[in-house]
């Protein structure tokens, strides 16, 4: 594929997409002292040339719509087109966030119903939709735990417990809220080390952050006992909903004993990942945390009309975390998806995500790959370790990831979780058909064969993409993060 120049390189003085320009006005109304002397060097290109440039760039991406994307922990499933089309109806797009509620009943009805559906499917007491991503949902959850202890005058709880297999956001979030992070180890079989947990718990424990099924792809079987232990110690349980897709409609975090959860709606509720956002990280809470929910929340009056609940309604709220109402347009997409699935569809999400993962795991094992947790059921994802291939052939997880791209598959998540060497975390999701899974298994087997005969060819991959393997060290050392207009002119 040919190199696409930067749009700045196509820019010519005096060109422009002139149909997009409003009529010129008489001069600049700014005080002279504030007027800009040099215009910003934004591109000057015609409309077709701009459209063509960005269309060509799009073609350099892998995406769910074009490729199997078994990226563990990211739930790359089909993003139904209807969700996008219906969230982008003019009546929704043109609504100002501060427009009167009397002119917002349509959107508020959708959001209120979404709150309810999420509440029921997770078994929580109440839901707030405002967090703008999973990490902000985590922040919200831990902030509520902090506010809860504080409101009770329980000031000595300075520690958050996090298993060593957790997502990096968990410890990073606890730190942002001023907590000390205490890591506890994971057992051989993937469950939390119960004895280590007991030892870590005490009057300093504010709470524990858990993902279930864990990032290791297995269900934490003693979750109820863990919940009881943590509660006895006066701590609260935080559920990282990154893997909610695995259990949707099968078991509910609220029933497991969790006090607060966040849901990545861009995973389980199929809103787009968009090349890294926008996400949406709705939170669900138990009754005792409900007074602390972030605002605004959608409430319904006795006459059936909807309105925003604010500080007056929730005086103990941890407050506002986004300028307006979080990623409302994403929430509308999640609403449409939830309605398309309905209760029957929600149960099938977990069923088929799990069927696909266990099938793929069995097929990989058949081909001789080593599973990190052999003998356990896969949840919606599982881990293959290439420790043996690395020892025997110097074949690494990264080599396989890059070579898979040549075969037309997006790579699984590599090197996470950190405690499994040379790992591939593979999550096929429920929307893939059996043929895609079989083709992936064949590609993996074929790469292993290639490594036995021509390891250099594998290590040189990718060969067939717009670029070959990129020098990341150079990127960090010789920092080039914007176009150098002068450099270009000099050249």
């Amino acid at each position, binding site marked *: 594929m040919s190199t696409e120049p930067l749009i700045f390189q196509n820019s010519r003085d005096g060109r422009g997409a002139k149909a997009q320009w409003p009529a010129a006005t008489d001069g600049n109304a700014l005080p002279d002292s504030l007027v800009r002397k040099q215009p910003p060097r934004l591109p000057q290109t015609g*409309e077709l040339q701009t459209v063509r440039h960005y269309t060509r760039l799009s073609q350099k991406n892998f995406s769910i719509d074009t490729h199997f994307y078994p990226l563990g922990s990211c739930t790359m499933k089909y993003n139904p087109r209807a969700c996008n089309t219906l969230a982008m109806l003019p009546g929704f797009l043109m609504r100002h966030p501060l427009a009167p509620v009397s002119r917002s009943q349509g959107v508020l009805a959708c959001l209120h119903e979404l709150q309810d559906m999420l509440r029921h499917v997770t078994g929580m007491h109440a839901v707030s939709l405002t967090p703008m991503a999973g990490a902000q949902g985590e922040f919200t959850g831990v902030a509520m735990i902090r506010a809860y202890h504080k409101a009770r005058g329980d000031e000595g709880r300075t520690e958050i417990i996090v298993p060593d297999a957790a997502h990096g956001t968990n410890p990073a979030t606890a730190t942002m809220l001023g907590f000390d992070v205490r890591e506890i180890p994971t057992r051989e079989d993937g469950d939390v080390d119960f004895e280590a947990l007991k030892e870590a718990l005490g009057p300093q424990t504010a709470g524990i952050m858990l993902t279930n099924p864990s990032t290791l792809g297995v269900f934490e079987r003693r979750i109820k006992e863990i919940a009881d232990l943590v509660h006895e110690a006066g701590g609260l349980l935080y559920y990282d909903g990154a893997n909610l897709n695995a259990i949707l409609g099968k078991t509910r975090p609220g029933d497991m004993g969790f006090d607060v959860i966040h849901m990545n709606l861009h995973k389980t509720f199929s809103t787009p990942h968009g090349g890294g956002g926008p996400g949406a990280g709705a939170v669900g809470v138990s009754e005792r945390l409900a007074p602390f929910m972030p605002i605004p929340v959608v409430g319904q009056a006795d006459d059936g009309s909807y309105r925003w609940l604010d500080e007056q309604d929730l005086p103990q709220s941890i407050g506002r975390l986004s300028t307006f109402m979080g990623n409302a347009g994403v929430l509308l997409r999640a609403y449409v998806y939830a309605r398309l699935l309905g209760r029957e569809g929600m149960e099938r999400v977990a069923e088929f995500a799990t069927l696909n993962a266990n099938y793929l795991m*069995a097929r990989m094992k058949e081909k001789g790959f080593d599973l990190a947790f052999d003998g356990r059921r896969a949840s919606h994802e599982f881990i293959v370790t290439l420790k043996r291939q690395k020892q025997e052939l110097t074949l690494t997880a990264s080599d396989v990831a890059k070579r898979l791209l040549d075969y037309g598959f997006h790579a699984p998540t590599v090197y996470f979780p950190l405690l499994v060497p040379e790992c591939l975390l593979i999550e096929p999701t429920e929307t893939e058909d059996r043929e895609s899974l079989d083709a992936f298994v064949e590609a993996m087997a074929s790469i292993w064969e290639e490594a036995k005969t021509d390891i250099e060819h594998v290590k040189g991959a990718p060969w067939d993409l717009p670029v070959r393997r990129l020098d990341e060290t150079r990127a960090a050392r010789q920092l080039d993060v914007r176009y150098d207009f002068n450099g270009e002119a000099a050249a």
Partner: protein
Amino acid sequence: MPFVPHTEKDIQEMLSVIGAPSVDALFDEIPEHLRCKKLDAIPSSAPEMEITRVMHERAAADGIALNFIGAGAYEHHIPAAVWEITTRGEFYSAYTPYQAEASQGTLQLLYEFQTMMCELTGMEISNASLYDGASSLAEALLMAVRSLGRKASGRVLLPRALHPYYRQVAANLTHAQGVTLHEVDFEAGTGLTTVAAAERAGVEAPTAVVISQPNFFGGLEDVDALTDWAHAQGALVIAVVNPTLLAVHRPPSEWGSKGADIVVGEGQPLGAPLSSGGPYFGFLCCSKQYVRQMPGRIVGRTLDLDGKPGYTLTLQAREQHIRRSKATSNICTNQGLLVTAATIYMSLLGPEGLSRVANASMANTRKLRDALTALPGVTAALSAPFFHETVLTLDRKVAPVLERLSDEGIVGGLDISGMYPELGNALLVCATETRTDADIARYKQALGEVLARAKAA
């Protein structure tokens, strides 16, 4: 069943490969007492045809009003090509570009975006976006604290004339890390933030001073004086700016004698629809010396094995997936899709188009002010020069007037009398380039009738 392609034959064959008797058996590690019962409270599956009808009805339920609210979210014209391209599946359904070789489209676009934001703000570095304007300000405050290291007092001065929601969000997101916010009053009559007022706040050794250009009232601050004063206190200057304004306004890098240190703002005016408040995106730019304290994704240009240029995420050692509890922020996602829209928007508008948008918005807001203040009972509240928003004072409570206007299909601005009681019956109004002379005349007529009717009654 929606979106699951399996046939009955597939299911049986897959189960036999797994060696499980049924799909239900795959959940046998979940203890029986935790298995959930039927989800009866959730509605049954709706076919696409049915939900399409529901959504069309709800989108139309409230009508499309003629809008005169800004207050942090602005109704600009968005070229059709922006979202046509942005919602192509290759952008829409891709993940964060961890596998750089399979994500060159998104990565090159982000590099172009970073360049455009550096051009608008005059700064050396831009990240690939944060969640929204208010949360970007919070991240900038934390970044300032990290940048000053042990010298940081954690005390931040911010104007009371900054968007009230920005002040709330900044407080909520930073207070657990020892940041304290101290408000600087605005001057009665102009609504502007003066150096004298900043001094009166009496905050010793501030870590950062926040300057909002324009401020919440639309007013244009004396950014040079404020910047120089802040630097004289040893503080970092954090500029909160409207990106459209920067097409015509001196960039923050040129404020005062040394320029701003960190620049943040709401990216929504660059191609994101109002959409009830989101998704939008926040931007954050800084000078090079602070780059290692910057939160969020950054894209860098590098070379591949053949020496050909390519793009990749860089400086990831700052981030949560590497540094865990010592990361600069817990943020993972940016607002990639919105940045895609913004990059295409800025390319289509170009320097001429964007400056026309800024100037036309300024001109329209002046026309709006002149038209409305010609009505008895309506006066301009503040005398300062303004961008594309301004505050009017009514001779009576604002809320009932806005309700009457809403009945006429006009969203007539934001009642800010509760947020700023000292301004009296204050109404914040905005007219971007999308408001025509006829729109303004319609507003004037409707407001005149509402005011006259109430007086008569």
